[in-house]
């Protein structure tokens, strides 16, 4: 029986990394299988949505709350928001669709979730680079090149981290209540209005601001914007709050996953 000790941590980690990378490649292949164009459109969805919003705001003659370019102001709000919403809802789907994990026992539901989340993160990073590249080169807004790149990258990573954590928690809830995806979808859409995508929280009346600051996505947007605008007013920004949400949700998600694993399998 001594031979049957648990595998070493490094060996187990190597297996997991291999599985997750394989799943990412597989996911990409399955996306492009149907049609390359639809995959491209899916990738560019944030940009399309941004264009729509821009068209509406331009039509009603709205000026950016900060900076000179409405495009850049909305873009810096949309990218962290989209990062959070996309990853958290797509990750939820991965944990619920468990047929592969049932058929390939080496693949655990969490691997599927991580693969989906990493792939989404990668895609959104590309989308962000394309978007700000476009604003910089084509529209000619010099501010689109982040003046403090580390702030922008840090905010993006923090948003992705929290999205993965919330995605795990969502996936667990979703495997018990099918309707949770719909509920969360409504919630995620309303976050668009609560996350400072098209306004500056510091310019809001105090009684509204005091409520808004509870939303962690707002802090991701604030942090992201400080990467682009040197003088961006960010009194409300609390990085520790955002990171606590990220780490807290990941811990909660992993604990729930482990504690409810058997019941989750039975509930399928």
């Amino acid at each position, binding site marked *: *029986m001594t*031979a*049957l000790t648990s595998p070493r941590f490094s060996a187990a980690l190597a*297996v997991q990394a*291999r*599985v997750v*990378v*394989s*799943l990412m*490649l*597989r996911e990409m*292949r*399955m996306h492009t*299988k*149907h049609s390359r164009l639809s995959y491209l459109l899916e990738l560019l969805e944030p940009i399309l949505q941004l264009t729509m919003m821009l068209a509406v705001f331009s039509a009603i003659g709205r000026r950016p709350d900060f900076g000179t370019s409405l495009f850049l102001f909305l873009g810096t709000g949309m990218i962290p928001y989209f990062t959070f919403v996309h990853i958290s809802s797509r990750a939820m789907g991965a944990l619920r669709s468990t*047929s*592969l*994990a*049932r*058929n*390939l*026992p*080496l*693949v655990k539901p969490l691997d599927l979730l991580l693969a989906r989340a990493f792939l989404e993160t990668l895609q959104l990073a590309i989308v962000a680079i394309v978007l700000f590249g476009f604003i910089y080169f084509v529209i000619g807004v010099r501010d689109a090149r982040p003046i403090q790149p580390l702030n922008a990258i840090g905010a993006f990573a923090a948003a992705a981290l929290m999205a993965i954590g919330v995605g795990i928690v969502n996936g667990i809830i979703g495997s018990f209540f099918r309707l949770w995806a719909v509920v969360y979808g409504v919630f995620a859409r309303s976050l668009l209005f609560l996350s400072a995508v098209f306004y500056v929280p510091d310019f809001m009346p105090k009684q509204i601001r005091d409520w808004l600051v509870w939303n962690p996505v707002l802090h991701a947007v604030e942090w992201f914007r400080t990467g682009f605008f040197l003088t961006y007013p960010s009194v409300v920004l609390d990085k520790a709050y955002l990171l606590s949400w990220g780490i807290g949700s990941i811990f909660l998600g992993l604990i729930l996953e482990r504690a409810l*694993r*058997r019941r989750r*399998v*039975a509930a399928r």
Partner: protein
Amino acid sequence: MIVLDHVTKRYRAHGAGPGKLVLDDLSAVFEPGRTIGILGRRGAGKSTLIRLLSGAMHPDSGRIFRQGRVSFPVGTAGPFVTTMTGRENAWFVSRIYGADPAEVIRFVETHSGLRRDFDRPFSSYTGDKRGRFLFTIAYALPFDIYLADESVIGGPPGFRDWCERLVDARRRQATLIFTTRRPRLLRRFADDAAVLADSRLALFETVRDAIMAFKADEPGAEDEPQAEDEEVWDDDDPLP
């Protein structure tokens, strides 16, 4: 090597009631390098046992220790994506299990006899082609422990002979654990035998003893009409 340590599995009843006890306090050691055939009637818990061994399912209580790479149940289509081609499926499954994709693909290409269908979507495969693909890919992957639920070999008749030789070649290095209700399959492949009945696993000294005990349990069981598993196995098909 796989060790079962007081494994119990119960299916929850829909509504009230204690549910069905499928496996009751099972303990067993499956030694490396052996082929173990497990006989059991319909509903005895054969598939449940294979799924527990593979890790696709967790026991209610007790533990399962595995050493070595354990396969997915041989001959099942579950691991494969229907929209991807045979080649792509082979590539991804090899990658996930850490095998060399090029080598696995070469093996499947040479031996499955799929020819141009290897590059067509898996969903377009007919029954024969599916069998050829599923069994070749499963045995192409270098597992230490192969698991099979009823379907140790399969595919069209001509392919089946080659498949049998392939299984024999794998048995020389690896462990094979299969469940079946056909004593004939045990006679052909098994080194060790066990009978799964009444939620318990009884191990026997020899394959012959196991088959005798299995048949004594219900005389003439082998002649029962078996309409449901036309998929892979045909009982009239003679085994050498």
